[in-house]
């Protein structure tokens, strides 16, 4: 048990990195002085998010029902939420695009979720750097 505790990294080493990485895409990498990689992540997530907004993609709201509805809407909501401050700002500033038919809107919705999903990958990468699993 003592060995397990010694192996697990303390929350103080990774929590600020994960928190900042969620709020600001690439922020965890900036905190860890990986500015080049952080900049690439920031530019990618920002570009995808703003392209999604310009294509008037819809933000998911959590809904339950049959299993497919629950997975799509709750998963989509979590994906949107993973963009951090971008999602919060867009919502607070009143972005509420209804889900309408059309391939551009549909791509926009996927870009908004995709931005959050690649930010999750960035957060996991920052976490691994913070706990010493990666350089």
């Amino acid at each position, binding site marked *: 048990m003592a060995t397990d505790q010694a192996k697990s990294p303390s929350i103080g080493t990774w929590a600020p990195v994960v928190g900042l990485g969620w709020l600001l895409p690439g922020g965890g990498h900036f905190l860890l002085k990986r500015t080049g990689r952080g900049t690439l992540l920031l530019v990618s997530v920002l570009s995808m998010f703003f392209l999604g907004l310009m294509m008037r993609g819809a933000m998911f709201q959590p809904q339950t029902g049959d299993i497919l509805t629950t997975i799509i809407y709750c998963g989509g909501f979590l994906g949107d939420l993973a963009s951090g401050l971008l999602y919060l700002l867009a919502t607070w500033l009143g972005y509420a695009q209804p889900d309408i038919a059309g391939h*551009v809107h549909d791509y926009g919705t996927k870009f908004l979720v995709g931005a959050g999903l690649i930010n999750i990958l960035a957060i996991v990468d920052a976490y691994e750097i913070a706990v010493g699993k990666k350089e």
Partner: protein
Amino acid sequence: MPKMNLSHFEAAVLFALFSSVVLGVITKRTDADRLRYGVRCFAYFMAALIGLGWLMRLGHG
């Protein structure tokens, strides 16, 4: 905010580009490996995009 109209192809290329950048950045350990992996991911995205596009076109007759 201006509204943007993209074709299927343009939107899919942009999606592939940004996803490939992130996959390259987070996956490998050296910059050369990251660049190579990012380019390879982008090529796979393009191959899937064009291949599936043709498959759907041929499937529709």
